[in-house]
């Protein structure tokens, strides 16, 4: 049973923070191992014959965490998890291998949590933490080179340059991060998060 403690500590320390279920964070969310069978398409090309098979295989390494609120279908809200764009191991569960989001019928996410995961996935893709990138062209059709960035709210080629930022009392600021994530995330200090630079 020492495995349980290690897994719980990894869940709690992976960067996600608990909001209103802060009391649950330290207590044990029980985990158990399960096996699931999935189907996979396999294509084999011979000299004159191509064989397309639907193979069944077992996934024995599924470690499942139980919910703190069992009636809630949403996997994030029922466990009190608040995500950031850095929680790549959680976000990878909600996307396909190419980088598109899985539909809400499969994952049972609530609408608010779905949009939070969507914005986090897009921010992680622009920061090269997850697979799946956008086309790097400007509005005028010019090529934008691939550069390191983080907390990008908007699409890469969609913003126009800010030539005059204005006077200090009416300054036009750069927008960073997402408002919904910052609103719900727990804060230690009373100072608000800066969404504008």
């Amino acid at each position: 049973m020492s495995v349980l403690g290690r897994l719980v500590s990894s869940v709690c320390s992976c960067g996600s923070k608990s909001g209103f279920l802060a009391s649950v964070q330290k207590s044990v969310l029980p985990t158990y191992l399960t096996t699931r069978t999935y189907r996979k398409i396999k294509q084999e090309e011979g000299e004159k014959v191509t064989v397309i098979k639907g193979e069944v295989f077992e996934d024995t390494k599924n470690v499942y965490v139980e919910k703190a609120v069992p009636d809630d279908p949403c996997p994030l809200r029922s466990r009190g998890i608040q995500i950031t764009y850095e929680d790549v191991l959680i976000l990878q569960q909600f996307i396909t291998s190419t980088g598109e989001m899985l539909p809400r019928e499969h994952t049972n996410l609530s609408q608010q949590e779905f949009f939070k995961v969507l914005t986090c996935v897009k921010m992680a893709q622009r920061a090269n933490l997850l697979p799946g990138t956008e086309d790097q062209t400007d509005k005028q059709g010019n090529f934008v080179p691939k550069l390191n960035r983080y907390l990008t709210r908007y699409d890469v080629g969609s913003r126009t340059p800010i030539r005059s930022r204005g006077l200090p009392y009416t300054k036009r600021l750069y927008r960073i991060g997402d408002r919904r994530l910052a609103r719900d995330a727990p804060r230690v200090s009373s100072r608000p998060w800066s969404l504008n630079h």
Partner: protein
Amino acid sequence: MSFGRANQQWATFSRVWHILNADRQPAGGIGVLVSRYVQGLHKPIYHPTSDVGDHVVVVNAKKIAYSGNKWEEKVFTAHTGRRKGRVRMQAFKVHELDPTWIIRRNIYRQIPNNLLRRTLFQRVHVFEDENVPAEIIENVTNVLIGPRPVPKAITDYTEEEKDSFPKLFLRDKYFLKS
């Protein structure tokens, strides 16, 4: 051989060479950190008129990171003094022409505006790659940590870590794994 007072003096006032990797670090934070070490503010023996600053080598200046969409929104301006001499360039174009320009500008502006600024700025060595001449690498003795803790990409995790990470929902048995 006894450890005399002269040796102690030379050891405290010696000039140290630091190295900093700018991979995925913010440009403004690097300027603050480097100017601090170049002036000597990290030393308890600091005084502005006594020359206690250190050398800093910045590596991988090409791979700097900006938060938000600043690569397209941020505009650097200049004027040549002549007519129609206003130059305005977006940050990614400036970076294309000279990858070290943004870092050097930030460091230069963080050092206080006095007569020591130009001599202290000569002790800052910025390189776009990891190709540093041997004369400079020989002197380096300390590694500086960047201001931003770089997050891990999904490719940086091992297979064991990915498998042992708990799942939040279980899919149907008719789910087609893609």
